């Protein structure tokens, strides 16, 4: 490992647009000039509400949606507009864990097929791939006999472990985790997050954790970026953003997340109402002016 944490992925002024239906319709711009760096071995959290563009940024990095302008540099190499063939080569570098462990695993394939698929695509021979599948299941805490079963035989948390094992198969240096635990039960959430942190500490993989849940990001991320309406409004270390938020939206987001202590939650509720009222008053003033 290198001493300093080199920048692994660098996102600069990225704009992503979706075509609207209709002839000569203006495209819908969902990301406005977003910049973000991820260093080697770092976990960066991307927080925002639905429609803020956080998932779109993840898909842009993965090459699943085209980038309208700006650059994405991976390990010093511009990957903004790489061809399909080159993108396939990047499979060894950048991987993904999706939100929904039900639709992210093909229900008609055996777990062993799901896990060996990326290995076979990368040219690993059948026998070696089988051995690696065993090792992968072991690493995510699933029994070896899981490989002869279908995804439908597993619970949500177990499926998410399978998805994580698939992401680890090619030993990537960056994994994009799009809402990795939001579909899971509370006690399962904590265990899957523990697994992610443990894997990261062991392998030094960098993670981009996309989530709407600040408590998830707080527990696993070194740094946090807050997205709002397609822009990153604030970023910094987790402590900076969560303990001393600067942007109004971040403040509102923090106060809106309910905490499990009744008295603490009552204080938050009052603070939030106050903040909303001042924001409303400010709005009225600006309209009046």
């Amino acid at each position, binding site marked *: 490992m290198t001493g300093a944490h080199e920048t692994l992925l660098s996102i600069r002024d990225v704009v992503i647009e979706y075509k609207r239906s209709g002839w000569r319709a203006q495209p819908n711009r969902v990301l406005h000039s977003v910049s973000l760096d991820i260093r080697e071995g770092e976990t960066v959290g991307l927080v925002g509400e639905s429609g803020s563009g956080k998932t779109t940024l993840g898909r842009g990095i993965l090459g699943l949606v085209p980038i309208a302008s700006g650059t994405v540099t991976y390990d010093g190499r511009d990957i903004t507009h790489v061809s399909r063939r080159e993108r396939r080569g990047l499979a060894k570098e950048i991987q993904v864990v999706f939100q929904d462990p039900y639709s992210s695993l*093909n229900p008609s394939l055996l777990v062993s097929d799901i896990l060996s698929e990326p290995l076979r*695509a990368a040219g690993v021979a059948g026998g070696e791939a089988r051995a690696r599948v065993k090792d992968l299941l072991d690493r995510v805490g699933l029994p070896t006999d899981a490989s002869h*079963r279908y995804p439908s035989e597993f619970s949500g948390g177990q499926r998410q472990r399978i998805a994580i094992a698939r992401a680890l198969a090619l030993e990537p240096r960056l994994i994009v985790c799009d809402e990795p635990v939001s579909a899971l039960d509370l006690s399962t959430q904590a265990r899957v997050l523990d697994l992610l942190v443990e894997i990261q500490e062991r392998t030094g993989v960098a993670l981009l954790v996309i989530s709407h849940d600040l408590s998830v990001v707080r527990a696993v991320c070194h740094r946090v970026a807050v997205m709002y309406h397609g822009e990153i409004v604030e970023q910094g270390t987790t402590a900076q953003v969560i303990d001393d938020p600067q942007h109004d939206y971040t403040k509102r987001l923090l106060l809106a997340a309910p905490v499990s202590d009744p008295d603490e939650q009552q204080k938050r509720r009052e603070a939030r109402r106050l903040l909303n009222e001042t924001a409303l008053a400010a709005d009225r003033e600006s309209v009046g002016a």
Partner: protein
Amino acid sequence: MSVELGLPATAEPGTFVRLGMVRRLVKKPTVIVAVVILAVALFFAVFGRLLAPFDPNYSVLDMINMQPFQSDFILGGDRAGRDILSRLMFATANSLGGAAIAVVVSTLLGVTSGLLAGYYSGTIDAIGAWVSNVIQALPGIIVLIAVYVVAGPSTVVSMTVVGILFAPAYFRLVRNVVIAVRNELYVDAAKVAGLSDARIIGRHVLVVVRAPIIIEMAFVAGFALVIQASLEFIGLGSPENPTWGGMLQDSFNALYISPLAILWPAAAIILTVLAFVLISNAVRDTLGDPRNSAGRKRRAVQVDAQTQVEASDAFLSVSNLSIAYPLSAHETREVVKGVSLEVNRGEVLGLVGESGSGKTQTAFAILGLLPEEAIVASGRIALGGRSLLGLSEKQLNALRGNDIAYVPQEPMTNLDPAFTVGQQFDFAMRKKLKLTKAQTKERAIALLARVNINDPERVHGLYPHQLSGGMAQRVLIAIAVSCDPALLIADEPTTALDVTVQAEVLDLLRDLQRERSMAMILVTHNFGVVADICDRVAVMKDGRVVETGDTRSIIREPQDPYTQLLLASVLDNAPMRAPLDAEKETAS
């Protein structure tokens, strides 16, 4: 970790999905009949040539229009004195072969183009759709006559054309399925995993369209057989080879002299086509219903044991409630096991648990909304001293709205997309409160304003798809309280919403509950929501209430190990992760 890793034991790991499908199919008597018919047809198609007692064109003058079962020509002789049985056997290969050509051609063309159009969309899709539309617009029979004129009597050519004419059916079917599959996350995951397009289509997409293609193939085979026979019947077949359609035409011309002769080719055609259609339907039925539908009967919610009504001061009291679902004729599975709850007027009870804990089932039992196969094995539910179990649907309807109201988890799917917001208010209020149209509108607008919707008059006229998720949930809450219910049951009312919207909706629920001093049950998995709004909590696990008490004491001093585990999993209390550089320093 042991909780999560309890894998279900399966007798035959790995094979049960596919075997299950075939096994369910083979159980159906219609499938057995169809398979036997097709097996016989296939047998004669392959061996008919060897088994036939005579050459199909061997003709004996004495045998002209011979009646069946009276000579060596068992099924009789045709107009030219040839053995009908031998000709029938020879014809099997020609007729089934023709159908096979049509099926192969249409499947190859339609499936390939459908896969490409669905997967790549854009220009390829547009061209595919255009070609498919043109082919569908062609009058098939005229094309076939024209082909006959140009190419002469050839089964291969005419059935190839039939295949091309059928290709659009596959194209549309496959394209639509592929478009649905293309948006599945596992296809995205495969792309990120570095699979080539060909591999993704072959492995992930083709698997999904496999079953609908089989259904369509059986259907096309039957239909192609009919078209082929029709062409031959109107004289467009090749005269040198015996075919079922050709034999039909032959015997039709001698109908008055030898009426029975028409029976044999007609029976061959009808039985084979019937077999194809039966198989196609059976596969469709089997795929459509994952469970075996034979053993399932619909019945009203059963109440096995009605315990004596005890005096209880609580407004809503649920005691010893058990709910079970039938697994088979003899076995049932209990999902709620002896649950007891009490909610007073003006009180909010949080029903907390993970998925599968039975919290939603309990709530639905109170609402009288359990699915029909559910069995209430024991227990009692009383609202204001009146027992709710065993009420008829009509009596329950009278209660819902006025006495009990419901706020669901998914706001969007719980508003009828065909009606405006105002009309959805009308349904409830005009029935329950006997108000006039003008009065309901006035009241609805007042309620919309109450749930903090800006411009309530405009929203009153909007359709659900024009609302955001938060707005739709406010509308549902307004509808739920429109008839002044005494008890409000909210099932994960904020789970589908963003946190900032969640906070506002919780504020609203809390304010409304206090204003109207409603009793409220809030089903949730989120302790933050519990801390925010609930007075008391019941923690559920595996169908049982493991702990119940006031919110502060449950959260601060949980007694049950499961509650302790849940609270320990709440991430608010987890340590914050340190910055990367700091982590590095402490490590070295």
